[in-house]
Protein backbone atom coordinates (compact mmCIF):
# COMPACT_ATOMS: atom_id res chain seq x y z
CA UNK A 1 0.00 0.00 0.00
CA UNK A 2 1.50 3.31 -1.03
CA UNK A 3 1.14 6.62 0.71
CA UNK A 4 -1.24 7.75 -2.02
CA UNK A 5 -3.53 4.76 -1.37
CA UNK A 6 -3.64 5.56 2.32
CA UNK A 7 -4.65 9.13 1.61
CA UNK A 8 -7.29 8.01 -0.89
CA UNK A 9 -8.79 5.51 1.57
CA UNK A 10 -8.76 7.97 4.43
CA UNK A 11 -10.39 10.61 2.27
CA UNK A 12 -13.03 8.10 1.18
CA UNK A 13 -13.94 7.13 4.75
CA UNK A 14 -13.93 10.71 6.01
CA UNK A 15 -16.23 11.88 3.23
CA UNK A 16 -18.69 9.02 3.67
CA UNK A 17 -18.86 9.41 7.45
CA UNK A 18 -19.16 13.19 7.24
CA UNK A 19 -22.04 12.93 4.80
CA UNK A 20 -23.66 10.22 6.92
CA UNK A 21 -23.27 12.35 10.03
CA UNK A 22 -24.75 15.39 8.31
CA UNK A 23 -27.76 13.45 7.08
CA UNK A 24 -28.34 12.01 10.56
CA UNK A 25 -28.05 15.38 12.27
CA UNK A 26 -30.41 16.95 9.75
CA UNK A 27 -33.03 14.24 10.33
CA UNK A 28 -32.53 14.48 14.10
CA UNK A 29 -32.90 18.26 14.11
CA UNK A 30 -36.22 17.98 12.31
CA UNK A 31 -37.56 14.95 14.11
CA UNK A 32 -36.59 15.62 17.72
CA UNK A 33 -39.07 18.47 18.48
CA UNK A 34 -41.88 16.26 17.23
CA UNK A 35 -40.61 13.26 19.19
CA UNK A 36 -40.47 15.44 22.30
CA UNK A 37 -44.04 16.66 21.77
CA UNK A 38 -45.21 13.08 21.18
CA UNK A 39 -43.59 11.98 24.44
CA UNK A 40 -45.26 14.77 26.43
CA UNK A 41 -48.61 13.76 24.98
CA UNK A 42 -47.95 10.08 25.68
CA UNK A 43 -47.15 10.99 29.30
CA UNK A 44 -50.42 12.88 29.77
CA UNK A 45 -52.36 10.00 28.21
CA UNK A 46 -50.58 7.57 30.53
CA UNK A 47 -51.48 9.58 33.63
CA UNK A 48 -55.14 9.73 32.58
CA UNK A 49 -55.23 6.01 31.86
CA UNK A 50 -53.65 5.13 35.20
CA UNK A 51 -56.15 7.09 37.28
CA UNK A 52 -59.20 7.91 35.18
CA UNK A 53 -61.19 9.10 38.21
CA UNK A 54 -58.73 11.95 38.92
CA UNK A 55 -59.21 15.46 37.67
CA UNK A 56 -55.76 16.90 38.34
CA UNK A 57 -52.17 15.65 38.35
CA UNK A 58 -49.94 17.88 40.41
CA UNK A 59 -46.25 17.42 39.82
CA UNK A 60 -44.53 17.07 43.20
CA UNK A 61 -40.92 16.83 42.05
CA UNK A 62 -38.29 14.53 40.65
CA UNK A 63 -36.28 11.68 42.08
CA UNK A 64 -33.34 9.71 40.79
CA UNK A 65 -33.09 6.00 40.09
CA UNK A 66 -30.28 4.35 38.11
CA UNK A 67 -28.95 7.89 37.63
CA UNK A 68 -32.04 8.78 35.65
CA UNK A 69 -34.48 11.53 36.54
CA UNK A 70 -38.04 10.46 37.14
CA UNK A 71 -41.12 12.46 38.03
CA UNK A 72 -43.82 11.92 40.59
CA UNK A 73 -47.28 13.40 40.83
CA UNK A 74 -49.96 13.82 43.43
CA UNK A 75 -53.31 12.74 42.06
CA UNK A 76 -56.15 15.05 43.08
CA UNK A 77 -59.88 14.75 42.92
CA UNK A 78 -61.24 18.10 43.88
CA UNK A 79 -59.15 19.16 46.88
CA UNK A 80 -58.45 15.65 48.10
CA UNK A 81 -55.31 13.70 47.27
CA UNK A 82 -56.51 10.27 46.23
CA UNK A 83 -53.13 8.79 45.33
CA UNK A 84 -49.81 9.19 43.64
CA UNK A 85 -48.36 8.38 40.25
CA UNK A 86 -44.64 7.85 40.10
CA UNK A 87 -42.28 7.27 37.22
CA UNK A 88 -39.45 4.81 37.66
CA UNK A 89 -36.81 2.85 35.81
CA UNK A 90 -35.95 -0.82 36.15
CA UNK A 91 -32.73 -2.36 34.88
CA UNK A 92 -33.94 -5.06 32.50
CA UNK A 93 -32.24 -7.59 30.27
CA UNK A 94 -31.24 -5.21 27.50
CA UNK A 95 -32.57 -1.81 28.50
CA UNK A 96 -33.92 0.43 31.22
CA UNK A 97 -37.64 -0.09 31.50
CA UNK A 98 -39.58 3.15 31.94
CA UNK A 99 -42.61 2.58 34.12
CA UNK A 100 -45.41 4.65 35.63
CA UNK A 101 -47.03 3.21 38.76
CA UNK A 102 -50.25 4.46 40.30
CA UNK A 103 -50.76 3.93 44.03
CA UNK A 104 -53.67 4.91 46.23
CA UNK A 105 -53.23 7.15 49.26
CA UNK A 106 -52.25 4.14 51.38
CA UNK A 107 -49.49 3.40 48.86
CA UNK A 108 -51.09 0.19 47.61
CA UNK A 109 -50.33 -0.33 43.92
CA UNK A 110 -53.40 0.18 41.73
CA UNK A 111 -52.07 -0.04 38.20
CA UNK A 112 -48.80 0.12 36.31
CA UNK A 113 -48.02 1.09 32.77
CA UNK A 114 -44.90 0.46 30.71
CA UNK A 115 -44.03 3.67 28.87
CA UNK A 116 -40.98 2.47 26.97
CA UNK A 117 -38.40 -0.30 27.02
CA UNK A 118 -35.98 -2.17 24.76
CA UNK A 119 -36.49 -5.72 25.95
CA UNK A 120 -36.41 -8.71 23.60
CA UNK A 121 -39.50 -8.88 21.39
CA UNK A 122 -41.47 -12.03 22.13
CA UNK A 123 -39.91 -12.59 25.56
CA UNK A 124 -39.21 -9.47 27.61
CA UNK A 125 -41.82 -7.38 25.85
CA UNK A 126 -44.56 -9.43 27.48
CA UNK A 127 -44.22 -6.99 30.39
CA UNK A 128 -46.59 -4.89 28.29
CA UNK A 129 -49.34 -7.51 28.34
CA UNK A 130 -52.40 -6.99 30.49
CA UNK A 131 -52.10 -10.29 32.33
CA UNK A 132 -48.70 -9.29 33.63
CA UNK A 133 -49.59 -5.69 34.49
CA UNK A 134 -52.92 -6.62 36.11
CA UNK A 135 -51.09 -8.71 38.67
CA UNK A 136 -49.89 -5.53 40.38
CA UNK A 137 -53.32 -4.39 41.52
CA UNK A 138 -53.58 -4.43 45.31
CA UNK A 139 -49.92 -5.28 45.98
CA UNK A 140 -48.02 -3.61 48.80
CA UNK A 141 -44.23 -3.51 49.41
CA UNK A 142 -44.01 -7.02 50.84
CA UNK A 143 -45.86 -8.64 47.97
CA UNK A 144 -43.86 -7.03 45.16
CA UNK A 145 -41.81 -10.13 44.65
CA UNK A 146 -41.40 -12.32 41.56
CA UNK A 147 -42.03 -16.06 41.79
CA UNK A 148 -41.50 -18.56 38.99
CA UNK A 149 -44.44 -20.67 40.13
CA UNK A 150 -48.18 -20.02 39.82
CA UNK A 151 -49.09 -17.30 42.27
CA UNK A 152 -51.67 -14.62 42.83
CA UNK A 153 -50.30 -13.45 46.17
CA UNK A 154 -47.02 -12.36 44.61
CA UNK A 155 -46.08 -11.53 41.00
CA UNK A 156 -45.76 -14.45 38.61
CA UNK A 157 -42.74 -14.27 36.28
CA UNK A 158 -43.14 -14.30 32.50
CA UNK A 159 -41.78 -17.62 31.28
CA UNK A 160 -38.49 -17.01 29.50
CA UNK A 161 -38.24 -13.45 30.82
CA UNK A 162 -37.53 -13.62 34.54
CA UNK A 163 -35.01 -10.78 34.35
CA UNK A 164 -37.49 -8.42 32.76
CA UNK A 165 -40.20 -9.45 35.25
CA UNK A 166 -37.85 -8.79 38.16
CA UNK A 167 -36.75 -5.46 36.73
CA UNK A 168 -40.35 -4.26 36.64
CA UNK A 169 -41.40 -5.67 40.00
CA UNK A 170 -38.46 -5.66 42.36
CA UNK A 171 -36.56 -2.79 40.80
CA UNK A 172 -38.90 -0.19 39.29
CA UNK A 173 -42.18 -0.57 41.16
CA UNK A 174 -40.82 -1.62 44.54
CA UNK A 175 -38.31 1.23 44.63
CA UNK A 176 -41.10 3.63 43.71
CA UNK A 177 -43.25 2.54 46.62
CA UNK A 178 -40.27 2.68 48.94
CA UNK A 179 -39.45 6.19 47.79
CA UNK A 180 -43.03 7.37 48.27
CA UNK A 181 -43.10 5.85 51.75
CA UNK A 182 -40.14 8.01 52.74
CA UNK A 183 -41.34 11.11 50.93
CA UNK A 184 -45.01 11.36 51.71
CA UNK A 185 -44.71 9.83 55.16
CA UNK A 186 -46.75 11.63 57.79
CA UNK A 187 -49.30 12.49 55.15
CA UNK A 188 -51.94 10.17 53.87
CA UNK A 189 -49.75 7.12 54.08
CA UNK A 190 -49.79 7.24 57.86
CA UNK A 191 -53.31 8.47 58.08
CA UNK A 192 -54.40 5.28 56.43
CA UNK A 193 -53.09 3.07 59.17
CA UNK A 194 -55.02 4.95 61.83
CA UNK A 195 -58.25 4.27 60.00
CA UNK A 196 -57.46 0.62 59.66
Amino acid sequence: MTGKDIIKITFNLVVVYLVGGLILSFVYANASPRIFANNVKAEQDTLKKLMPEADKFEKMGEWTIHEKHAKYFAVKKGEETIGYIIQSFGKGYSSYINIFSAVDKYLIVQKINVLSHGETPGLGDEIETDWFKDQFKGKDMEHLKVLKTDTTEYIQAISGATISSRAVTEDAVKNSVEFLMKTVKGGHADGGHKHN
Partner: protein
Amino acid sequence: MAGTSTINLKDQFLNGIIKENTIFKLALSLCPSIAVTNNLKNGIYMGLAVLFVQTMVNITISMMRNFIQPKVRLPIFMLVISGWVTITSMLMAAFVPDVYAKVGLYIQLIVAFASILARAEMFASKNGFVPSMVDGLGMGCGFLFALTTISFFRELVGKGSLTVPTGLATQHVFTFINAKPLLIMVLPAGGFLAVGLLMAAFNWVDVKYLGSKSHGH
Protein backbone atom coordinates in the same frame (compact mmCIF):
# COMPACT_ATOMS: atom_id res chain seq x y z
CA MET B 1 -23.03 -14.63 -8.63
CA ALA B 2 -24.28 -13.87 -12.13
CA GLY B 3 -22.58 -11.28 -14.31
CA THR B 4 -23.89 -7.75 -14.21
CA SER B 5 -25.26 -7.73 -17.74
CA THR B 6 -27.41 -10.85 -17.69
CA ILE B 7 -29.51 -10.66 -14.57
CA ASN B 8 -33.03 -11.91 -14.95
CA LEU B 9 -35.01 -9.81 -12.47
CA LYS B 10 -37.64 -12.46 -11.85
CA ASP B 11 -34.98 -15.08 -11.12
CA GLN B 12 -33.16 -12.63 -8.88
CA PHE B 13 -36.33 -12.00 -6.89
CA LEU B 14 -37.09 -15.72 -6.52
CA ASN B 15 -33.44 -16.40 -5.65
CA GLY B 16 -33.93 -14.60 -2.33
CA ILE B 17 -37.05 -16.56 -1.53
CA ILE B 18 -36.00 -20.07 -2.52
CA LYS B 19 -32.43 -20.70 -3.64
CA GLU B 20 -30.71 -18.36 -1.22
CA ASN B 21 -33.37 -18.01 1.44
CA THR B 22 -31.61 -16.20 4.30
CA ILE B 23 -32.71 -18.58 7.01
CA PHE B 24 -33.59 -21.88 5.36
CA LYS B 25 -30.65 -21.95 2.91
CA LEU B 26 -27.93 -19.55 4.03
CA ALA B 27 -28.64 -20.01 7.76
CA LEU B 28 -27.84 -16.34 8.40
CA SER B 29 -29.41 -14.05 11.02
CA LEU B 30 -30.60 -17.02 13.05
CA CYS B 31 -30.03 -15.30 16.37
CA PRO B 32 -32.57 -12.48 16.00
CA SER B 33 -34.91 -14.82 14.14
CA ILE B 34 -35.08 -17.23 17.02
CA ALA B 35 -35.44 -14.42 19.52
CA VAL B 36 -38.53 -12.86 17.96
CA THR B 37 -40.42 -15.74 16.37
CA ASN B 38 -42.35 -16.97 19.36
CA ASN B 39 -45.54 -15.39 18.18
CA LEU B 40 -46.91 -14.75 14.73
CA LYS B 41 -47.30 -10.99 15.15
CA ASN B 42 -43.63 -10.57 16.05
CA GLY B 43 -42.53 -12.70 13.10
CA ILE B 44 -44.54 -10.62 10.64
CA TYR B 45 -43.43 -7.24 12.03
CA MET B 46 -39.79 -8.28 12.09
CA GLY B 47 -40.02 -9.64 8.53
CA LEU B 48 -41.56 -6.39 7.26
CA ALA B 49 -38.94 -4.27 9.02
CA VAL B 50 -36.14 -6.34 7.46
CA LEU B 51 -37.78 -6.19 4.02
CA PHE B 52 -37.77 -2.38 4.19
CA VAL B 53 -34.24 -1.90 5.54
CA GLN B 54 -32.74 -4.58 3.25
CA THR B 55 -34.19 -2.90 0.16
CA MET B 56 -33.10 0.61 1.17
CA VAL B 57 -29.59 -0.53 2.11
CA ASN B 58 -29.20 -2.42 -1.18
CA ILE B 59 -30.30 0.64 -3.15
CA THR B 60 -27.96 2.97 -1.26
CA ILE B 61 -24.94 0.69 -1.57
CA SER B 62 -25.48 0.11 -5.27
CA MET B 63 -25.63 3.86 -5.87
CA MET B 64 -22.43 4.39 -3.90
CA ARG B 65 -20.59 1.36 -5.28
CA ASN B 66 -18.24 3.24 -7.61
CA PHE B 67 -17.20 5.61 -4.86
CA ILE B 68 -16.41 3.07 -2.12
CA GLN B 69 -12.76 2.05 -1.70
CA PRO B 70 -12.69 -1.77 -1.52
CA LYS B 71 -10.39 -1.81 1.51
CA VAL B 72 -12.80 0.17 3.68
CA ARG B 73 -16.05 -1.21 2.30
CA LEU B 74 -17.16 -2.91 5.52
CA PRO B 75 -17.12 0.18 7.76
CA ILE B 76 -18.99 2.00 5.03
CA PHE B 77 -21.62 -0.76 4.74
CA MET B 78 -22.06 -0.64 8.51
CA LEU B 79 -22.56 3.12 8.38
CA VAL B 80 -25.22 2.78 5.70
CA ILE B 81 -27.07 0.05 7.62
CA SER B 82 -27.00 1.80 10.99
CA GLY B 83 -27.80 5.10 9.29
CA TRP B 84 -30.94 3.71 7.68
CA VAL B 85 -32.01 2.03 10.90
CA THR B 86 -31.54 5.24 12.88
CA ILE B 87 -33.24 7.47 10.32
CA THR B 88 -36.18 5.08 9.99
CA SER B 89 -36.72 4.88 13.72
CA MET B 90 -36.40 8.65 14.25
CA LEU B 91 -38.84 9.45 11.45
CA MET B 92 -41.32 6.86 12.69
CA ALA B 93 -41.09 8.14 16.26
CA ALA B 94 -41.74 11.67 15.00
CA PHE B 95 -44.51 11.11 12.47
CA VAL B 96 -46.20 7.80 13.30
CA PRO B 97 -45.68 7.33 17.06
CA ASP B 98 -48.46 4.73 17.31
CA VAL B 99 -46.82 2.52 14.72
CA TYR B 100 -43.40 3.17 16.19
CA ALA B 101 -44.58 2.00 19.61
CA LYS B 102 -45.37 -1.37 18.00
CA VAL B 103 -42.47 -1.92 15.61
CA GLY B 104 -39.71 0.31 16.98
CA LEU B 105 -38.13 -2.57 18.85
CA TYR B 106 -37.80 -4.68 15.72
CA ILE B 107 -36.27 -1.95 13.62
CA GLN B 108 -33.52 -1.25 16.14
CA LEU B 109 -32.55 -4.93 16.21
CA ILE B 110 -31.74 -4.88 12.49
CA VAL B 111 -28.39 -3.12 12.98
CA ALA B 112 -26.95 -6.48 13.98
CA PHE B 113 -28.30 -8.49 11.05
CA ALA B 114 -25.69 -10.50 9.17
CA SER B 115 -28.04 -11.02 6.24
CA ILE B 116 -28.19 -7.32 5.39
CA LEU B 117 -24.42 -6.93 5.43
CA ALA B 118 -24.08 -10.12 3.37
CA ARG B 119 -26.31 -8.83 0.59
CA ALA B 120 -24.53 -5.47 0.56
CA GLU B 121 -21.21 -7.28 0.16
CA MET B 122 -22.24 -10.04 -2.23
CA PHE B 123 -24.70 -8.29 -4.46
CA ALA B 124 -25.42 -4.58 -4.09
CA SER B 125 -21.76 -3.54 -4.20
CA LYS B 126 -21.37 -5.24 -7.58
CA ASN B 127 -24.67 -4.52 -9.29
CA GLY B 128 -26.74 -1.62 -10.51
CA PHE B 129 -29.73 0.15 -9.01
CA VAL B 130 -32.62 -1.96 -10.33
CA PRO B 131 -31.11 -5.44 -9.81
CA SER B 132 -30.03 -4.43 -6.30
CA MET B 133 -33.49 -3.21 -5.45
CA VAL B 134 -35.05 -6.43 -6.77
CA ASP B 135 -32.48 -8.46 -4.85
CA GLY B 136 -33.32 -6.55 -1.66
CA LEU B 137 -37.04 -7.11 -2.18
CA GLY B 138 -36.47 -10.81 -2.89
CA MET B 139 -34.22 -11.41 0.10
CA GLY B 140 -36.60 -9.41 2.28
CA CYS B 141 -39.63 -11.40 1.11
CA GLY B 142 -37.74 -14.64 1.67
CA PHE B 143 -36.94 -13.52 5.19
CA LEU B 144 -40.54 -12.48 5.81
CA PHE B 145 -41.72 -15.86 4.52
CA ALA B 146 -39.28 -17.75 6.76
CA LEU B 147 -40.13 -15.75 9.88
CA THR B 148 -43.86 -16.05 9.26
CA THR B 149 -43.60 -19.82 8.86
CA ILE B 150 -41.40 -20.28 11.92
CA SER B 151 -43.48 -18.03 14.17
CA PHE B 152 -46.74 -19.58 12.95
CA PHE B 153 -45.42 -23.04 13.83
CA ARG B 154 -43.92 -22.02 17.16
CA GLU B 155 -46.89 -20.11 18.47
CA LEU B 156 -49.41 -22.71 17.36
CA VAL B 157 -47.53 -25.59 18.95
CA GLY B 158 -46.09 -23.69 21.91
CA LYS B 159 -49.09 -21.67 23.01
CA GLY B 160 -51.98 -23.11 21.06
CA SER B 161 -52.87 -19.66 19.75
CA LEU B 162 -52.12 -17.25 16.91
CA THR B 163 -51.52 -13.52 17.38
CA VAL B 164 -52.56 -11.75 14.21
CA PRO B 165 -51.72 -8.11 13.57
CA THR B 166 -54.76 -6.29 12.22
CA GLY B 167 -53.78 -2.90 10.94
CA LEU B 168 -50.72 -1.76 12.76
CA ALA B 169 -52.19 -0.68 16.06
CA THR B 170 -54.16 -3.66 17.37
CA GLN B 171 -53.93 -7.39 17.36
CA HIS B 172 -56.25 -10.35 17.54
CA VAL B 173 -55.47 -13.48 19.47
CA PHE B 174 -57.14 -16.71 18.49
CA THR B 175 -56.89 -19.61 20.87
CA PHE B 176 -57.24 -23.07 19.39
CA ILE B 177 -56.11 -25.37 22.14
CA ASN B 178 -57.07 -25.03 25.75
CA ALA B 179 -55.06 -28.01 26.94
CA LYS B 180 -51.51 -27.37 28.06
CA PRO B 181 -49.46 -26.77 24.88
CA LEU B 182 -45.77 -27.57 24.36
CA LEU B 183 -44.36 -24.49 26.07
CA ILE B 184 -40.80 -25.36 25.06
CA MET B 185 -41.56 -24.33 21.48
CA VAL B 186 -41.88 -20.66 22.43
CA LEU B 187 -38.75 -20.73 24.58
CA PRO B 188 -35.30 -20.26 22.99
CA ALA B 189 -34.54 -24.00 22.84
CA GLY B 190 -37.76 -24.57 20.90
CA GLY B 191 -36.62 -21.94 18.44
CA PHE B 192 -33.72 -24.15 17.39
CA LEU B 193 -36.03 -27.14 17.08
CA ALA B 194 -38.53 -25.21 14.99
CA VAL B 195 -35.90 -23.70 12.69
CA GLY B 196 -34.23 -27.11 12.23
CA LEU B 197 -37.46 -28.93 11.43
CA LEU B 198 -38.72 -26.26 9.06
CA MET B 199 -35.32 -25.98 7.39
CA ALA B 200 -35.38 -29.72 6.71
CA ALA B 201 -38.93 -29.51 5.36
CA PHE B 202 -38.07 -26.53 3.15
CA ASN B 203 -35.05 -28.29 1.66
CA TRP B 204 -37.00 -31.49 1.14
CA VAL B 205 -39.69 -29.65 -0.80
CA ASP B 206 -37.02 -27.76 -2.74
CA VAL B 207 -35.11 -30.89 -3.78
CA LYS B 208 -38.17 -32.98 -4.48
CA TYR B 209 -40.45 -30.51 -6.24
CA LEU B 210 -38.55 -27.38 -7.17
CA GLY B 211 -35.64 -29.16 -8.78
CA SER B 212 -32.62 -28.01 -6.79
CA LYS B 213 -29.80 -30.54 -6.62
CA SER B 214 -29.31 -31.98 -3.17
CA HIS B 215 -25.77 -30.64 -2.94
CA GLY B 216 -26.82 -27.15 -3.97
CA HIS B 217 -24.74 -24.04 -4.33
